[in-house]
């Protein structure tokens, strides 16, 4: 099942509904990178609450989207990493040091609002 990507203001919100196969992870990656250009989005939120595991493939793919998004002048934040998934990632050695994360959708939106505001200030000043 493809991951729905909703437009919310200047942001794109991808809400993963179920465990994803590698093919579905790649499809999400492609769709997000395409839509960020199509919609001129300033930010992306990927909600991973429903993901059963974040293994090496999924984490590399999410990281690719985040870094590519940044190169295109926008910012991505991952929200909803479950506690057991987070601790498995740490034990595995999957680091996401340079990736933004937030507890939930609401805090993800707040993060992007702050990021956008700071950037607008910098441009204006």
């Amino acid at each position, binding site marked *: 099942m493809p991951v729905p990507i909703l437009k919310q203001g200047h942001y794109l919100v991808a809400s993963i509904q179920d*465990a*994803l*196969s*590698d*093919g579905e992870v790649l499809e999400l990656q492609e769709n997000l990178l395409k839509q960020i250009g199509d919609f001129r989005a300033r930010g992306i939120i990927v909600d991973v609450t429903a993901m*059963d*595991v*974040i*293994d*090496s*493939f999924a984490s590399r793919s999410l990281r690719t989207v985040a870094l590519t998004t940044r190169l295109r002048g926008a910012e991505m934040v991952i929200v909803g990493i479950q*506690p*057991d*998934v987070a*601790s*498995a990632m740490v*034990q*595995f*050695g*999957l680091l996401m040091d340079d990736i933004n994360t937030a507890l939930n959708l609401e805090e993800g939106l707040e993060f992007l609002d702050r990021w956008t505001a700071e950037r607008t200030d910098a441009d204006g000043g």
Partner: protein
Amino acid sequence: MSFWIVGPPKEQTPMGDEVLVAISSDRDVVRARQTGRSMATQLGLSRSEATLLATAISEVARNIVEYVGEGQILLCTVNLNGMEGIKVVATDSGSGIENVATALQDGESSGGRLGLGLPGARRLMDEFHMVSKVGEGTTVTMTKWKGPGRG
């Protein structure tokens, strides 16, 4: 670096529950890890333990699809000295790996893309053993035990 290889596997008594998952696509990778998770939950492993197991299964299953194309994963409940756990046996008949110790080092991979998978999976499991014969295939055997105090 022989310390990467834990084993040979101790004598474990099978407890009866056994599921064989054929692996030939990315959908099978999901099926294998979900089957492993549900067996772990049924046996009483914590959610965290089940997630560690599911993540490790995902990695070894993907290796089969990525490097060999097809293989199988046997999941079974085991018992050792009163401890209960889930044993995973991932088997393929691929070209095999010449140097198992190297394959288990961080950042190493014959395909050059999946260097994290096996050493990562090893860190998530309590027991991990890998045997590979060039021209015959590879078998990864790994076990996750139910943590203390989980009856």
